[in-house]
């Protein structure tokens, strides 16, 4: 079994309260084995009312098409619930994960940012 983790309410430098934004951070390998945990965690936040989600994948070492599908599913769920957004954070250094996002062609659905601060700034601007 591959190594995978996901946690909530990750800290952002200089920001103490995130308001209605759910901040999650994941690491390790997100494959077909780990994707159900990611799906469950995102669905849980949406179910509890979060409409703006930030998911930091900077420490993810592997991501496959099922994980991309989970993220697309979360975006569609937000749309069904009346609107919202999912921002994915991936540091420039993580070229492998960024490359998969480029090839997957989901940039029209999922905003991709280089840092948590950049993602939060965008969410604050767009509401």
């Amino acid at each position, binding site marked *: 079994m*591959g190594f995978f983790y996901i946690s909530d309410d990750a800290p952002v430098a200089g920001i103490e309260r995130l308001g209605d934004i759910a901040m999650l951070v994941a690491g390790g390998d997100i*494959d077909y084995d780990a994707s159900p945990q990611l799906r469950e965690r995102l669905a849980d936040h949406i179910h509890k009312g979060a409409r703006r989600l930030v998911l930091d994948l900077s420490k993810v070492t592997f991501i496959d*098409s099922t994980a991309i599908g989970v993220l*697309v599913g979360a975006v*569609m769920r937000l749309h069904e619930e009346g609107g919202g957004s999912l921002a994915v954070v991936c540091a420039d250094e993580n070229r492998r994960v960024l490359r998969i996002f480029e*090839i997957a062609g989901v940039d029209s659905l999922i905003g991709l940012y280089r840092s948590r601060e950049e993602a939060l700034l965008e969410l604050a601007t767009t509401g």
Partner: protein
Amino acid sequence: MRATVQQARDTCTRSELRLPAQPSKLSVAREYVRDAAAAFGFDAERCYEIAFAVNEAVTNAIRHGRPDEHGEIHLSTLGEGERLTLSVRDYGTFVASTVDYSPTAEGGRGFALMAGLMDTVQLCVSSDGTTVRLSKALT
């Protein structure tokens, strides 16, 4: 000619892994393929791409295919000259997907991603199984 044939044989390498058709074994498949690709001479980035593509094929076999009588699917590597070919075989009969390929669909991206990272992707369907062949050359 004889020397050429002998040389080709010398540079032909094969290996096989029989993998329990379980999601928890995907990391084993990736590690196996990364090691095989590295031993063949690919750099770390190409090894990652090859492991990614094989992971997609193995995932498809686990999700949609059928294992052999031992509950396993077969992953093999064949190195010929400059080219490494990886085959993922299961014993189900491939059925063309009716998945919605729109950008908003959750599924249906696997083959596009494989094609984006490998030189060739072949789907071989027969009455006794389905094999996905993925190949990439060193140069």
